[in-house]
């Protein structure tokens, strides 16, 4: 009962969003058709977007394209985690590794992932691999930087305490430093996923025949702004949903973390 009330109370937070949608509907649906009809094509009313979205969902097109995008994101995300986390741990823990890797990563890091698109297309052609490559680059660095910082943040006293209890180097790395770094690694995963998701759209616009980015770009040719907006909203919602999933996983996997703050 109480949780139901709280849920209803939360709906109040959607007041502004609702107001914006209503104003949008009034202008695109009733004002523009009388004053400047071309505006309606450029910015169709929410009702038209809803119809387009409904048709895209029924036909299965939206699901198909969203899945194509998600699949790319997941593959790239998995590869980026599998490489950035171990490398980040090594760089955070061993000074020598850090010193050698630092010039390389510091040079590559400021390059926008999108700057790799020309080379990516030449190397991998148009398709999944090229897209995954771009997303991989986008996810990799936030995860790497946060892993390094997480490993470095381990309290010296805590390491000393562990040593005094008989822990050797590997126990300190895997049972102390790793655990201490996990909250920040998760932060890196969330940031990385978000940046990867942004890069995905650009990668698909330039180098794909499927996916939400492709669908948007393709719809532009037919002035189907209703589909473009549907894709934009889908991208936003999926990004939000995945961030929430990561946050839930974090709270479930690190039950101690909230209490420790």
């Amino acid at each position, binding site marked *: 009962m109480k949780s139901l009330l709280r849920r209803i109370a939360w709906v109040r937070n959607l007041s502004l969003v609702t107001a914006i949608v209503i104003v949008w509907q009034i202008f695109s649906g009733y004002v523009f058709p009388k004053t400047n009809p071309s505006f309606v094509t450029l910015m169709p009313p929410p009702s038209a977007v809803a119809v387009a979205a409904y048709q895209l969902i029924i036909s299965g097109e939206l699901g198909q394209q969203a899945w194509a995008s998600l699949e790319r994101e997941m593959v790239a995300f998995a590869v980026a985690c599998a490489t950035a986390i171990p490398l980040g741990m090594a760089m955070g823990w061993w000074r020598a590794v850090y010193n050698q890797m630092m010039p390389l990563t510091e040079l590559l890091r400021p390059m926008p992932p999108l700057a790799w698109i020309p080379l990516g297309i030449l190397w991998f052609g148009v398709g999944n691999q090229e897209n995954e490559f771009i997303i991989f680059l986008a996810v990799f660095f936030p995860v790497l930087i946060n892993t390094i910082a997480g490993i470095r943040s381990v*309290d010296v*006293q*805590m390491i*000393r*305490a*562990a*040593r*005094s*209890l*008989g*822990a*050797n180097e590997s*126990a300190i790395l895997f*049972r*102390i430093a790793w*655990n*201490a770094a*996990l909250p920040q690694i998760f932060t890196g995963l969330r940031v990385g996923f978000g940046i990867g998701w942004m890069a995905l759209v650009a990668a698909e616009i330039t180098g794909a025949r499927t996916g939400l980015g492709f669908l948007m770009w393709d719809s532009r040719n037919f002035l189907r702004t209703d589909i473009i907006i549907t894709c934009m909203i889908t991208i936003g919602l999926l990004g939000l949903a995945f961030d929430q999933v990561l946050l839930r996983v974090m709270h479930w996997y*690190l*039950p*101690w*973390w909230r*209490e*420790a*703050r």
Partner: protein
Amino acid sequence: MAKLVVDHVNKVFQLVRDGTELVALKDITFTVEDGQFYSVLGHSGCGKTTLLNMIAAHEKPTSGTLTIDGKPIVSPDWTKTIVFQEHTLFPWYSVYRNVTFGLEMKRLPKDEIKETASRYIDLVGLRGFEDRYPGELSGGMRQRVSLARSLAVQPLILLMDEPLAALDAQTRMFMQDELERIWERDRKTVVMVTHAIEEAVKLSDVILVLSPRPGRVRSVIPIDLPRPRKETDPRFLEIKEQIRDLIFQDFVESSA
């Protein structure tokens, strides 16, 4: 059996800024007999924590030797465990797993780990809290876990760096009694660093007073009052006064 001998130990730090040398400890010599509760008392900055870190082998002396039962102290291990002022419990492990950490590092058999851990959790009065995370405990409870964790591995010497300093006054008084009770159980050799005179007089067999900058042995004072000691006992007050004068005198001299 664990007798600690600190023999003519000097510690000099090189300042990172300009490479000048800072003498932290000068010619420190003392002996802690087996089963003694030994306190090192002094101002902040007199090098007492450095001294403790050297006993734990987290730092090396510039010259001089430290030995436990005749064997030189080389590297940190379970033979000398530390209870720190701030909780250095592992926040990602439950109370139980914090206590078993050192036992697992010792590679003891599973049932022995279980038995030992629950015995020490009982000893510090935390039965029923095994599954809690450190973040869910009060300051006093955390220090109990820290104590249980350090004692469970059966160290030869228990080191304590201002173990009660971060607690509020009431918890602190209560924990002093607890510390004494726990120590009296198995009469472990203890070296405690503190700046609280009353705490040192209440708990210690011997108090070593360090003078500040550089830290030198100012005086070694055996406390032979019967336990448990009362803070209102005239002799207790007398010793307290005596130590306070000693430290105050040093303070005036070093500030002048």
